[in-house]
């Protein structure tokens, strides 16, 4: 039996991109994965303890009913916006530089979303009753909006990601002959019989363009809806129309910065210096400068409005941030998100990956702090209780252990993925999508047959 011939686009970097996948799983991989699994194990143990004893093992209390878990939820969903921003929004705007980094960014989306969802589950007092959300769901509750938006986002991201991966899985199936047989079977099954026909590429591009529009709308919706969990209540400072756009900007900001970190790691670990040139980082640098300034704008818009308005219950929260219990966090956040990174970007960032990574790490630490400083201070000074009860909150080791395990989980999924799949899209970065040779007789007949049928019908 003759195997049907398959075509793949020509990519001068094919060797370099496939190289990380070729060697069998070695001690270094196992050490990394093992280490991450240990961190995850500690988190799982902490969670099991929390599940058995109750949420009392956290630092949450009255009135600070939401703490680190909800902060993580917002942060992970924000991180997830990286991929969609780069692959969907930049796709629509025709920014060509996105191509080599699209998959690395999308993978970040895919592997951070589940941990955002997990954070909500971890925060629930009765995770065993999660099905009630489906059985008795009420769409009047912003949590249901969240539930719907995030699950739709997760589903669409998987589809979008998989579609763009399809031609490359087929390439792996055909080019990687020395990998273990289970790995080859995996490629064979996942490739869904992809042949690399121009018509297939044409359809794929069209579907992805269509999905990019949909994903762009989703990305705006999802993070705005996440913010509405806070914004729809009448608690001071949360209840602001700015909270949606601010969350969205923060999400794309931290997501893009995370892409810088991921790219630098991939570049180093998998020797992709040629494929991921410094120029890419320079393009991201420009985006990050814009986002930093956008962040400053939002920050001033929010706090100047609060300060000028001088509404008593809002000022309680305002001072909690600027000089109160959260002032250290607030100022560290300001320096980590804006002051230091913008200086780095302007004076040091160009052509320097090390500086770009430094700034990006700072931005992500700062954005986590920002989520915290947006969520918690309001809870310590709720509308009525600010004069009756003054709340405070200190997270416990349980919360930190679980947080660490979520990040470890994300890194674990990411590192496993990059060991089995090309992390730079081969077909999107190829010089041309034209097949190398003409079609064999058999395929052509099938193809023509299909066309005839379609014309006839």
């Amino acid at each position, binding site marked *: 039996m003759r195997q049907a011939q398959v075509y793949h686009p020509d990519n001068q970097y094919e060797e370099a991109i496939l190289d990380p996948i070729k060697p069998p799983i070695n001690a270094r991989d196992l050490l990394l994965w093992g280490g991450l699994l240990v961190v995850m194990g500690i988190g799982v143990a902490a969670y099991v303890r929390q599940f058995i004893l109750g*949420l009392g093992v956290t*630092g949450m209390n009255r009135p600070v009913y939401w703490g680190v878990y909800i902060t993580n939820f917002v942060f992970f969903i924000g991180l997830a916006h990286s991929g969609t921003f780069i692959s969907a929004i930049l796709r629509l705007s025709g920014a060509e530089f996105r191509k080599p980094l699209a998959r690395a960014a999308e993978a970040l989306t895919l592997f951070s979303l589940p941990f955002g969802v997990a954070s909500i589950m971890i925060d629930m*007092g*009765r995770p065993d009753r999660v099905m009630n959300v489906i059985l008795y*769901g009420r769409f009047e*509750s912003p949590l249901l909006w969240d539930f719907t938006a995030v699950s739709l986002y997760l589903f669409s991201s998987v589809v979008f990601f998989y579609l763009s991966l399809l031609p490359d899985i087929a390439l792996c199936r055909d080019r990687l002959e020395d990998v273990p047989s289970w790995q080859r079977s995996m490629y064979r099954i996942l490739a869904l019989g992809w042949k690399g026909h121009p018509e297939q590429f044409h359809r794929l591009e069209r579907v992805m363009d269509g999905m990019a529009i949909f994903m762009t709308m989703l990305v705006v919706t999802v993070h705005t809806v996440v913010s509405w969990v806070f914004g729809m209540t009448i608690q001071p400072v949360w209840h602001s129309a700015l909270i949606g756009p601010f969350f969205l900007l923060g999400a794309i900001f931290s997501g893009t910065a995370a892409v810088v970190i991921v790219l630098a790691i991939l570049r180093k670990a998998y020797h992709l210096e040629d494929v991921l040139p410094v120029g890419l980082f320079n393009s991201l640098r420009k985006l990050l400068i814009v986002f930093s300034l956008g962040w400053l704008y939002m920050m001033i818009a929010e706090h100047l409005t609060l300060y000028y308005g001088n509404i008593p219950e809002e000022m309680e929260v305002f001072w909690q941030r600027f000089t109160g219990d959260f002032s250290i966090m607030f100022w560290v956040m300001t320096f980590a998100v804006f002051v230091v990174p913008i200086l780095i970007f302007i004076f040091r960032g160009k052509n320097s990956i090390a500086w770009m990574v430094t700034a990006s790490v700072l931005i992500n630490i700062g954005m986590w702090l920002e989520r915290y400083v947006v969520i918690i201070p309001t809870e310590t000074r709720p509308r009525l209780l600010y004069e009756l*009860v003054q709340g405070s909150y200190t997270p416990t080791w349980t919360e930190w252990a679980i947080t660490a395990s979520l990040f470890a989980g994300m890194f674990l999924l990411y590192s496993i993925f990059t060991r089995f799949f090309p992390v730079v899209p081969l077909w999107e970065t190829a010089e041309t999508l034209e097949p190398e040779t003409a079609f064999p007789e058999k395929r052509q007949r099938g193809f023509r047959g299909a066309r005839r049928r379609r014309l006839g019908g």
Partner: protein
Amino acid sequence: MAKWSMVIDLDKCVACQGCSIACRFENNTPVVSPEEAALGRSILWNEVFPLRSEGEAAIASAQAKFLTRPCMHCEDPPCIKVCPVGATYKDDEGIVRQNYARCIGCRFCTVACPYGVRYFNWYEPSWEEGMDTHLNPDRVAGRGDLEGPAIRPKGVVEKCTFCIHRHHKAIARAEAEGREFRNSDYTPACVQTCTAKARFFGDFDDPNSTVSRLSQSRRAFRLLDEAGTSPKVIYLHEG
């Protein structure tokens, strides 16, 4: 259909915290350790707050002010709006109730309530030895599940129900005695126990009821009226 409402006269209140204690025993609210209480995890459906007094004059006159606070049973409750599973709901007579069996413990309602009347069970409820054998045995089912004083599982939210089980008991008693249920048959524990008779309870829609007449007082005000929640608990100013 009655519209149950409460009036609290702050002028009469002596801040004895009797309402708080009566509520605790009536509704089986769990007891927490002093360490937990310091974290702000004590559960008091009817809490008594000292108000911060400002200025020299207040200190000189040693005039401490207090606010006792049950659930406001709002006409437009922010807690019900945000509940993703309908575990909290307003019944036909305007009482905001909590279905422990359905609550998923997301604590959205506790965050959304501007009055802080909702409490979360951080641990499995517990009582000191001896106390655990003297819990209120009254049980009331709403929507098929036990509510009110029923023992709560860990991880769910609980709140003041205007002693809904007393309402049900009063109806049953009236039925057993072969007479019509009168509004005066139903009184929450905090109102019954109030040392200074500072609390009044009744049907707001009945123009002759005490609560309805007192709500017309010039001293009458509602907590956070500007929040648009339309509380059914009405306070009377001091002085």
